[in-house]
Each structure stands twice: as structure tokens, then as C-alpha cells.
């Protein structure tokens, strides 16, 4: 039963209301006395209690979308309480172009927002909420008819665009500068300097090289970074006539890795030495994959192990097993939580950005090294704003100076945009 409170309310004078209430009390008293032997008499009265509707229902167009979203906000019913609450949920209704109401969703008690994600531009929408109780319900006032709008530019992301533009421009500028022949200084990265030696060691010992590209698929940039390094490593392996094993946990990574290694062997002039079985698929299951790779490490005893890509709980299991067979291990990931494990168990660790810099570093091509310089500009900007933010926050907290507070607010605004 849907009650429409706005239509049902009638103004009753105080004296009449008092008389009505007194009459009701007498009737209730007589009824309860007469039915004293019936245990559910009181609860029957409670169940038929009316419930108050939600109030202040507002519908507004979602800012910066394709015109398909409308947001609703409301104040929950006064009967929506944790203790002795009557509300069992809310139903969201929508009318399109003054047609019949459609129920969009049923929400639990306590809900006070809803997002309609199926709106269309040029249609006129109106919404109302029905508050549900055990045996009754109450309909709210419907919102004013409205339309959703499409925005072509997300102005909230203006600062993000600016930051991205500056960093991208710096990267492109330094790539072009390097192309023109300007010598750029890049610091030594020990883990990458050791790659040739590590592959050489495997060759001398007559043992294979194991390359593990993490457990994520090709849609993870860490896996892409790992494959770009694989391109360089497999070229060295082809040159040294060493042997590589690469068990993978994703089929697409298998296909991409095969292409990468094959191209490296061809570039090294040794296509005959390439074999598809260098890369083999194991399983998508995290610990099934770990068991297989651990078994391979223990049986084959590789001289060199590369652990590069996206790693999770398996990072330490793999690295410790590699350590136990005396392999030289070069690891790298962009997951900060796994870095300590690699640092503890591996000989060289590429920390975060070094994983992404590796391919450019190993290539020694000026245009690739230029991109690393561009990255440094981004770091410089980050350092400047970290220091400025720290100083502003400290001064603001200690002395509450107006202009400094404004700077702090502005920094918050800039770096909280998404």
C-alpha cells in the first residue's frame, strides 16, 4: 500500500484532535482488555504503524559525463533508525517523459544517495523514493522534471592535464634533444650493469637462465616493462649461446614473450637456435604457478634468475628458492610491498622506476635515454611541491597565517584532482 502523505494530511483543530485521541485511547484500551488472551494483539497494532517518507529529495545532473548519469540525494526517513527503526528499505522510482514510473533499485535502510546510470540526453526525468516498512510504505515528493547533460571537457581534471602535459612535454623535449646528439648523463644502475655478467656466468657454468615476468597479464605496464627487458636479455643470451627458460602464468604473455625472444634471436643472427618451448604456459593460478617455477628452479638449478614484473605473495617464495640454489638473482617490481622481499633475497633489485628505466638504459640509444631525463623533470617538480607543501602545512599548523593557508588549500586542490 502506497501512502501519499501530502494528499492525506488534513488540518485538524487542537480541541478536536484531543477528543479524537481520547476516543482512540478508550477504543484501544477496550480492545486490548477484550483481547488480553490473544498474544499478538499489541504487535498487530505496531505493524500497521505509518512510516514517514524521505525528505529533501534532490536530483542533479552528474558533472562531467556523457549525459548518462543523474545523481539523487535525500534525507532518510525519520523512522530509519538503528534502534526501533521501522524502515526496511527504499525503492527508487523514475518517470521518463511523464510516463509510468519504473522502479530502478531497492536500497537498504540508511541509504541516502543513488546514481541513475541509464539516463539519456533529451529525455525528461522525475524521481521519487518510496520508503518501505513491514506492511506499509510512504512515497516522497517527486523531483522537478529535469534532463541530463553532456559535457565535452572535464574541467575538474584541468590541473591533472597541466601536470601530465608538462611531464610529457619534458619527456618529448629530451627525446628530441638526445636525437640531435646531445650527450645526457644517466646514473649507473647496478642491477642492469650486472645483466651481461649474469648471463655470462650462466654460459660459463653451462646452466640455463630463468626469466619470470610476474603473474599479471599484458594489460599491466610492469609486464610490458619486463618484456622490454626480456628483449635485451634474450639478445645477450642469443649472442652468448646460452639457454633460457620462461614459464608464464598468462597465455597472452606467452605469445608476446615468444615473439620477443624470437625477434631477438633473429636480430642476433641465430634464428635456428630459437625454440618455442623456451616459453611455456603453466597456469593462471598464483600458487600453482609458484609450485611449478619452484620445482623448475630446484630441478634445473639455473645460474641466473630474472624476477621482473608484477609480483605478490609469491615474490619471496621464488626469490628464496632461487637463493637456495645459488643463482644470481636480478629482481624488479613496481609493487612497494614486495620490494623488501626482493632486496632481502636477491643480489640486485630494480626499485620501482628503475624497472621502467631498464629497457631505455640497456638500449643505450640516445632517444630512449632522453625519456629518462624527461622523467627527472617530473621528479624535480614532485620534489618542489613536496617541499612547498610540507613547509606550507607546517607554517599553517603552527601559526595559522592566512596567505599560507590559501597556498595549502590551492596545493590540496591541485593534487587531489582526479
Amino acid at each position: 500500500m502506497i501512502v501519499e502523505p501530502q494528499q492525506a494530511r488534513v488540518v485538524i483543530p487542537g480541541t478536536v484532535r484531543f477528543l479524537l485521541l481520547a476516543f482512540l485511547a478508550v477504543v484501544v484500551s477496550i480492545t486490548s482488555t477484550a483481547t488480553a488472551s490473544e498474544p499478538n494483539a499489541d504487535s498487530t497494532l505496531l505493524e500497521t504503524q505509518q512510516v514517514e517518507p524521505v525528505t529533501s529529495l534532490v536530483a542533479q545532473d552528474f558533472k562531467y559525463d556523457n549525459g548518462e548519469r543523474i545523481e539523487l540525494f535525500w534525507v532518510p526517513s525519520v523512522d530509519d533508525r538503528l534502534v526501533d527503526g521501522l524502515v526496511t528499505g527504499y525503492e527508487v522510482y523514475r518517470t521518463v517523459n511523464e510516463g509510468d514510473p519504473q522502479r530502478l533499485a531497492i536500497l537498504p535502510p540508511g541509504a541516502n544517495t543513488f546514481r541513475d546510470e541509464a539516463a539519456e540526453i533529451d529525455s525528461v526525468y522525475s524521481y521519487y523514493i518510496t520508503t518501505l516498512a513491514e506492511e506499509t510504505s510512504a512515497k516522497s515528493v517527486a523531483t522537478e522534471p529535469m534532463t541530463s547533460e553532456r559535457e565535452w571537457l572535464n574541467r575538474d581534471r584541468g590541473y591533472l592535464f597541466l601536470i601530465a602535459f608538462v611531464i610529457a612535454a619534458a619527456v618529448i623535449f629530451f627525446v628530441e634533444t638526445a636525437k640531435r646528439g646531445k650527450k645526457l648523463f644517466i646514473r649507473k644502475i647496478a642491477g642492469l650493469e650486472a645483466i651481461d655478467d649474469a648471463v655470462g656466468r650462466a654460459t660459463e657454468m653451462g646452466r640455463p637462465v630463468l626469466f619470470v615476468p610476474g603473474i599479471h597479464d599484458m594489460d599491466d605496464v610492469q609486464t610490458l616493462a619486463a618484456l622490454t627487458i626480456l628483449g635485451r636479455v634474450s639478445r645477450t643470451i642469443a649472442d652468448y649461446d646460452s639457454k633460457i627458460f620462461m614459464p608464464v602464468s598468462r597465455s597472452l604473455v606467452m605469445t608476446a614473450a615468444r615473439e620477443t625472444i624470437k625477434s631477438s634471436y633473429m636480430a642476433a643472427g641465430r634464428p635456428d637456435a630459437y625454440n618455442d618451448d623456451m616459453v611455456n604456459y603453466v597456469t593462471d593460478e598464483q600458487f600453482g604457478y609458484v609450485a611449478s617455477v619452484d620445482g623448475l628452479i630446484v630441478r634445473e638449478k639455473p645460474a641466473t634468475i630474472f624476477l621482473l614484473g608484477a609480483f605478490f605473495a609469491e615474490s619471496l617464495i621464488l626469490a628464496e628458492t632461487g637463493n637456495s640454489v645459488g643463482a644470481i638473482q636480478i629482481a624488479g617490481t613496481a609493487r612497494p610491498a614486495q620490494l623488501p622481499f626482493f632486496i632481502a633475497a636477491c643480489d640486485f633489485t630494480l626499485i620501482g622506476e628503475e624497472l621502467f628505466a631498464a629497457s631505455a638504459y640497456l638500449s643505450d640509444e640516445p632517444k630512449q635515454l632522453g625519456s629518462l631525463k624527461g622523467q627527472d623533470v617530473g621528479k624535480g617538480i614532485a620534489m618542489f611541491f613536496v617541499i612547498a607543501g610540507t613547509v606550507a602545512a607546517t607554517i599553517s599548523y603552527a601559526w595559522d597565517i592566512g596567505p599560507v593557508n590559501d597556498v595549502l588549500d590551492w596545493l590540496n586542490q591541485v593534487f587531489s584532482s582526479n
Partner: protein
Amino acid sequence: MKRQIPLLITFFVGTLLIISVFVPPLGDLERDFTLFFDIIAVFAFFLGGGNLLRIHLMKLANRRKDWGFSAVTVSGFLFMLAIGLFKVGNPGGIAEAVDAEGSWFKVMFDNVINPLQSTMYSLLAFFVASASYRAFRAKNREATMLLIAAFIILLGRTPLGVMLTGWIPEWMSVAQIPNLAVWIMNSPNLAGQRAIMIGISLGVIATSLRLILGVERSYLGGDSD
């Protein structure tokens, strides 16, 4: 040509997805492309499964070293594939979900795969112990600092830390081991992690740009066309 087409696709898709971040009508593109990727990945699974079978069957056929492991792998793979595809023992028949209660697939998953995975995961405890032992040896100044920090955090997360320094008066509460542990985690540790995260973000931007602009081609096997 073999390299030009992938480079062109990378440039087009990469640029489009960057633009979609700032242009709301293109906002769903990321979701759509992720969906495309998932569809391709599903078909690629046939390649993976086929490769797994081929390698292990060849190992079995040639009776190569450790062929016993291959026998277990192949039989496990085929058995799970069969009971999953034909929904063997599934109370609701072929129309029911593959992991319905009572189905062979569910029974195998709960009683074989799950315990095996837990076993592998539990090895981590022992590996943490052996790795910590090596990492915390006070060989130099940095390792000593690491050892002290680890010691404080270990004590701070146990009742012993409260017991040892609970007597320190309130005005010196920062010296209580649990508070020191919280400070180490929230200040130096968090600052270090954030610095790494900033570096990673910049690295991702630079790598993405190198891939989009075609500067980085090693994943295609190098520069030669």
C-alpha cells in the same frame, strides 16, 4: 610492415585512451578496451592450454627426465577440464553453475586445489624467517639501522613491547615501544613508500610515452623493420 602496424595501433589506442581521461563522452573507452582485452585473453587461453598439453605429452611420450610430474599434470588438467565441462556430479545438471555445491569440480577445488594452494602460501612463513635472518645481520651501518627498526616494530606489535616500556610516563609516551613502532610505520616508512610511488608513477608515464611514440620497440624484437 610487421612492426609498423602494431606501432600504429599502439599510438592510436594509447593517444585515444589518454584523451578519454579528459573528455567525458569517451570515458567508457577504458572499460570497453578492458573488455576487448578480456575477450582476447579468453581465446588466448586455448593457446596456453594447448601449449601445456603439448609440452607435457611430448615429455611423456619421450620418457624424458621427470616425466612422472608431467603425468600428474596432464591427468590433473584433463580430469578437471572434463568434470568442469561436463559438470559431472553437478546436482543441477548441465544448466547449473560449474562450482555448484556437491559437484565434483567443487569437491576437487575445495579438497585438493585449495589445500595445495594454502600449503604453498604457508611456505612463506619459513622463507620470511630465512630472508630476515640474512637481511638483519648487522654487517654495516644501514643493516644495523634496519635491524633496530625491525626489532622495534616486532616488539611494538607484541604485548612484550607494552610490558617493557609501559612504565614510561605519559609526557614521554613517544618513547614507548608501541608508539615508536607506529611512528616508524607512519613517518619514515610511509614517506619512503610514497617516494617510491612517485618514482613509479613517473616511470609509468615515461614508459607509456616511449611505447605510444614508438621510441621503445624492444617488445617487438628491436628496431629493425
